[in-house]
């Protein structure tokens, strides 16, 4: 067994917090090795030590049998460790080729040293020859689909020829199924070229699809390293390994037939170029699931229902009354709350604390007549709501940027609860949320549906199908016949991915 990397007895503390308590980790040359663990289990810390962002307190790291010191990101790169961050920073106005060689453009001789585009293109071609993948590197990165950006970031990391180890931090979190396939294709060709890949993901089904082995982290230690085959043969449940407890079903029980009053009705709703012909009815007490990939129009539909985009065809009725929203403030007044898909850019004021964010969507309730804030009352309300949603850690004065993805989502939900709306629209509610927190979020959404109407829009078919009472799919802006509101998972999946009618 050729181990390209050995990490032994790695310890890391942050002040009083023990992040890693003796982690042993081995990576073979040319394997795809998935790291699993709930947020805070230690996988990110280990990755940051390996990529030179943090230095470990104890333990040794060997690359190719040689002990190495990875004191800085630069040292890690020189040692052959390349990292692609979760949201890679690329220059949107430059082409793929230019991004790959950013800072290493090379130059032609002469007084006005010009960038040597020919050599850059040749080098890019050489990279593509080593790792065959279909991509147009002459396109501007800003106009590329998410997967191509990810590939550019990976090629950027690989331009160093001595790269032996590639770290991918949740590369699939924003990709659709089809995009995922083309990323996996690249990963396989990297593996064939002898590069070992460490791959962080929250999606277990991907592990079986792509990874040769996986290591589960829990409480700052590695608790198991297995091949996918071993896990299947021995009947080991990964969620149990992750959570250290018998994981219940990820999705809460359905309540049965919803027969509440009709809260929201859309008839032939459309906006040219984005989506059209959307019909549905939402009743109190139910979860309506809408499955659609990125670009299918779900995001735009959610914003239209919330008044941020104006429809140019069709009608909307809230509790039997026709509405035309001039903006989200009208939608909020009508009793609609949107939990947007991107909490960091759309849902939260990141440097402000929990109380600020919880109360900001209903400042009328948060203040007296005249506008003075009810500081004590707001804090008590926030405390109660934070307890309801299970905020961890329970620190209301922390800026929300200091919470994990799942807990940030809980804060957005608390904000919606403070608003006390009748209709809640969730877009991609669990993107970037670890599996332990996902179950909790699903339970919260189900509880919410007992007194309100809930719409869940997602590009995760299992999420829509597992959570919702009734489902529909959107494909290229149009609702697709799925075989009724009770379509099976496969019917829903093929409808949303290929626009296929149910067989």
């Amino acid at each position, binding site marked *: 067994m050729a181990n390209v990397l050995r990490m032994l007895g790695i310890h890391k503390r942050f002040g009083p917090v023990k992040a890693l308590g003796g982690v042993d980790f081995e990576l073979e040359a040319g394997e795809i090795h998935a790291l699993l663990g709930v947020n805070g289990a230690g996988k990110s810390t280990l990755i940051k030590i390996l990529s030179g962002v943090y*230095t470990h307190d104890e333990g040794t790291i060997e690359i190719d049998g*040689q*002990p*190495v*010191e*990875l*004191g*800085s990101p*630069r*040292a890690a790169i*020189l*040692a*052959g460790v390349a990292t692609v961050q979760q949201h890679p920073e690329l220059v949107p106005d430059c082409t793929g080729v230019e991004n790959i*060689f950013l800072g*290493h*453009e*090379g*130059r032609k001789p002469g007084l006005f040293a010009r960038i*040597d585009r020919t*050599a*850059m293109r*040749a*080098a890019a071609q*050489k990279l593509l020859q080593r790792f065959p993948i279909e991509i147009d590197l002459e396109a501007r990165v800003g106009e590329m689909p998410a997967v191509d950006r990810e590939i550019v970031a990976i090629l950027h990391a690989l*331009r*160093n*020829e*001595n790269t032996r180890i590639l770290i991918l931090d949740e590369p699939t979190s924003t990709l659709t199924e089809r995009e995922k396939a083309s990323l996996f294709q690249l990963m396989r060709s990297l593996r064939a070229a002898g590069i070992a890949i460490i791959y962080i993901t929250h999606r277990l089904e991907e592990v079986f699809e792509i990874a040769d082995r996986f290591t589960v982290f829990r409480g700052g230690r590695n608790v198991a390293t297995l091949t996918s085959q071993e896990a299947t043969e021995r009947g080991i449940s990964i969620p149990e390994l992750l959570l250290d407890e018998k994981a219940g079903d990820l999705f809460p029980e359905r309540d049965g037939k919803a027969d509440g009053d009709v809260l929201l009705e859309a008839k032939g709703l459309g906006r040219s170029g984005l989506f059209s012909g959307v019909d549905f009815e939402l009743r109190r007490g139910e979860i309506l699931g809408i499955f659609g990939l990125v670009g299918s129009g779900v995001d735009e539909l959610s914003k239209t229902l*919330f008044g*941020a985009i104006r429809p140019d065809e069709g009608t909307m009725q809230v509790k039997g009354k026709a509405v035309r929203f001039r*903006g*989200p*403030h009208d939608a*909020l*007044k009508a009793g609609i709350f*949107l939990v*947007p898909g991107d909490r960091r*850019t*759309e*849902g*939260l*004021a*990141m*440097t*402000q604390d929990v109380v*600020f964010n919880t*109360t*900001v*969507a*209903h*400042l*009328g309730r*948060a*203040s007296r007549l005249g*506008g*003075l*804030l009810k500081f004590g009352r707001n804090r008590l309300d926030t405390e109660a709501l934070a307890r309801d949603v299970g905020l961890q850690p329970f620190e209301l004065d922390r800026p929300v940027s200091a919470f994990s993805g799942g807990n940030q989502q809980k804060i957005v939900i608390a*904000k919606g609860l403070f608003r006390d709306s009748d209709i809640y629209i969730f877009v991609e509610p669990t993107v970037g949320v670890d599996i332990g927190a996902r179950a909790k979020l699903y339970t919260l959404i189900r509880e919410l549906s007992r007194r309100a109407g809930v719409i869940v829009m997602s590009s995760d078919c299992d999420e829509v199908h597992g959570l919702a009472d009734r489902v529909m799919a959107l494909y290229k802006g149009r609702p697709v016949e799925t075989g009724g509101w009770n379509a099976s998972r496969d019917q829903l999946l093929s409808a949303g991915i290929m626009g296929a009618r149910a067989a």
Partner: protein
Amino acid sequence: MKTLAKNPIYLRILAFVVLLAVVAAIFQSLTPAYLSSNNIHALLRHMAVQGLAALGLTFVIVVRQFDLSFPGVASLGAMTLGWLIASNFGVGAGIAGAVAVGLACGLVNGIAVSYLRLPDIVATIATGGLAIGLSYFYSNGTSISKNFFKSGILDLNDAKYFGLDAPVAILALTAAIAALILHGSRFGRAFYATGENRVSAVYSGIRVKAYVLAAFAICGALSCLAITLLVASSGAANVTAGSQLLMPAYAAVYLGAALFGAASVPATIAGTLLMSAMLNGFTLMAVPYFYSDAIVSTVLIVAIAAFDPKVSAALKRLRPARSPKALASTSLREVRS
């Protein structure tokens, strides 16, 4: 910055007091008159002018916009005040007229930036230039001091309210109202939410355009209130009156934000106090204004650097890295050749 951001508030206050004490000690050792009662009164009066302008600017900075028009707007306010007094309309009408002019200019800025979506820096430079141009209309650019003595405008500088010099009392009252709005009311929450993340603010039902407009309007009105105090203390209205407001106001807001972690009313007041303590010291030492301007500008740059997390992160990276036993790099030789 990040470590500073975690520090409890009393450490920040302590840092401010120490800084202020150091500044005071330096000037006291250079010019013994610095801490005299007369000079402290003068310092505080000066601070009142700068503080009012900086308070207005604070609202604009909180919604993350820039206003470069207020010096010009203040000049127009000063000339409006002077003209109204010279034309026997009285002090009350004069002040109201000046503040109304500032409010109007602020509304123009706000409409241009928030409803017409013009870039704030360019748009406010333009309205500022326009205001300066208009200020020449009253007297072709000569300073106005007619009727000043008998109108009572000078009393605004010399009177005492609640045992405080009138300008100081006006600043204190304005700061209290501004603090109530920004930190004690729903409107303040909306201002901060707008500045922090405009999309999430819109999704929270906040009418961000109205708040951006309001911030510019407040900034315009307060800069004209500030200039009223300056006119009262100098005894004449001048077309260049506002030009001394720009740099100290920005420096005060950013210095305060650097000290206290974010732009706020107490931070701005603290920043203004530091700025005024320095400017007053330089004046007392008879340092020519262009040198003290240069020093103020230096302080501004340092404050911005400290306020900007990117800069402090870059500074952090400057600490020496441990030398790695690195493998030889064979990076893209074919590209470089």
